[in-house]
């Protein structure tokens, strides 16, 4: 496909996104600009950031694993985040510096999740050969373990503290933690700079691990960098809007369909735009059509889940 065609698709998606943003900012504003713009603007920024980070980390993860129905949340990193938040509240109480100072809390979470991804990498390569499925299995088991631990502690916690946990530490689409916006943007930008030189290696990696080695790519180094990036991006998305299961998977696959290319630069931009559209548009629908009777995560999980099943069935048919 020629570059012009990609550009045209980018323009269509961008116009769509801008339209949705305009609608989101202006609908039922009743002229209260001073009040509405900062409020909605912050929420909007979070949507855009989450749309981009989930899209990019999902595509990178899928290229890394050579599997288009996986989502990074299989690594259990978001569960680790939830466990960390629950533990500090459980151990230190709601007045502690770690709970009150959101930035500090966030930075520690990011570091923790990066360490966890390095641990997963070590597990993967200590084993003879490159047992990617072993890594996924370990991630899944650990994720379940972290979630169970977190639930266990939540049950024991004082109800007032739990309330605090709910509202402050676990973000959701209706309760976006905007205090972390600035630091998230900065970290996201730095991570992008760090990952940009790897784009060309990602293209080669989509041919498979053996081919990438044959073509002189240091696969271990690229894998570590990508896993770190996925950890950071998962941390950002989870901190801002809470754990997301299907969003990355959904937008990545739509981007593959729309752009029909192996070039990750194009896929990253395209999927990010699609992710942003899904979040801003979905939120509009939830707020204005369903009048908040359902949540955006429910809608996303529902649509993503259906798409996931369709893809599974299609893959099975293709191989039979």
């Amino acid at each position, binding site marked *: 496909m020629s570059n012009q065609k990609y550009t045209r698709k980018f323009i269509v998606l961008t116009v769509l996104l801008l339209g949705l943003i305009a609608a989101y900012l202006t609908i039922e504003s009743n002229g209260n600009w001073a009040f509405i713009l900062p409020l909605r603007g912050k929420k909007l920024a979070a949507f855009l950031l989450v749309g981009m980070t989930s899209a990019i980390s999902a595509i990178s993860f899928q290229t890394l694993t050579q599997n288009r129905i996986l989502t990074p949340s299989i690594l259990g990193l978001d569960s680790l985040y939830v466990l960390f938040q629950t533990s500090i509240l459980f151990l230190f109480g709601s007045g502690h510096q770690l709970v009150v100072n959101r930035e500090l809390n966030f930075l520690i979470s990011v570091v923790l999740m990066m360490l966890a991804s390095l641990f997963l990498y070590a597990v993967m390569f200590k084993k003879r050969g490159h047992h990617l499925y072993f890594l996924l299995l370990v991630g899944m088991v650990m994720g379940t373990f972290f979630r169970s631990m977190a639930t266990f502690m939540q049950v024991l916690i004082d109800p007032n503290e739990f309330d605090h946990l709910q509202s402050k530490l676990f973000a959701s689409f209706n309760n976006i933690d905007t205090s972390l916006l600035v630091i998230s943007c900065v970290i996201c930008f730095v991570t992008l700079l760090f990952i940009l030189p790897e784009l*060309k290696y990602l293209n080669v990696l989509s041919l498979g691990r053996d*081919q990438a080695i044959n*073509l002189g790519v240091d696969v271990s180094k690229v894998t570590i960098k990508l896993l770190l990036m996925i950890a950071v991006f998962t941390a950002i998305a989870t901190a801002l809007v809470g754990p997301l299961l299907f969003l990355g998977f959904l937008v990545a696959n739509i981007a593959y369909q729309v752009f029909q290319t*192996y070039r990750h630069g194009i896929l990253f931009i395209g999927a990010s735009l699609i992710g942003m559209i899904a979040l801003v548009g979905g939120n509009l629908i939830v707020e204005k059509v369903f009048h908040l009777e359902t949540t955006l995560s429910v809608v996303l999980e529902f649509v993503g889940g259906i798409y996931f099943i369709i893809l599974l069935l299609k893959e099975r048919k293709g191989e039979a």
Partner: protein
Amino acid sequence: MDIQKVSKSYGEKMVVGNISIPIKKGAITAFIGPNGAGKSTLLSMMSRLLPKDTGAIYIDGNEVKAWKQNELAKKLSILKQSNGLNLKLTVRELVAFGRFPYSKGRLTQQDQDKIQEALAYLELEEMSAQMIDTLSGGQLQRAYIAMVLAQDTEYIFLDEPLNNLDMSHGVQMMKTFRRLAKELGKTVVIVIHDINFAASYADEIVAMKDGQLFAKGTTEEVIQKDILDRLYEMDIRVVTVDGKQFCLYFN
């Protein structure tokens, strides 16, 4: 290229045991042997796809591990049995990946020339704009080999390159390898199942069985009834037609 005392085990099972062989430069060397002999494993170790347990593999005097990844990719290429890719890629784009060690994705005019040359060499020019998921197995195999050609390395390792190819394309492929060795001085190592292809086109043959070196030598030395019978544990007739050796094993 020199292989010294290379071994590889999976748990208790030794798949390649203590093999030492020099690989002759500018010639076609064929690895033959029954299934599970460790031929592909050895080839994977020679091309750093698999780490070896013991031993050393030297390329131009340096151990494979000591080479910079990117430099090695300009020296040595490997094509494994490939399974289909779920990728949106044209034939030309696939072949262009062969230039990655040189250009890191930004193709120069020289890269374009090499790509064109490789496409022509394998008669893929007409389908160069076709998506690879529309190709037949044999066409895809040829596209991959064109990619290896575009990589333009001194050493070319191929794991069962004749898979999916019909007789005519198989012969053509072997002739291509021969030209690469004779005209361009490339060192070609292939793992091959059809011993008649090995007998007709290879200069050197390395026979492996149960992870051990079974026999090695020139093609005439190895294609002998007593060696092949013991190697494959079957009754094989070796006949000479027009000065070439042929193995008849349908009985």
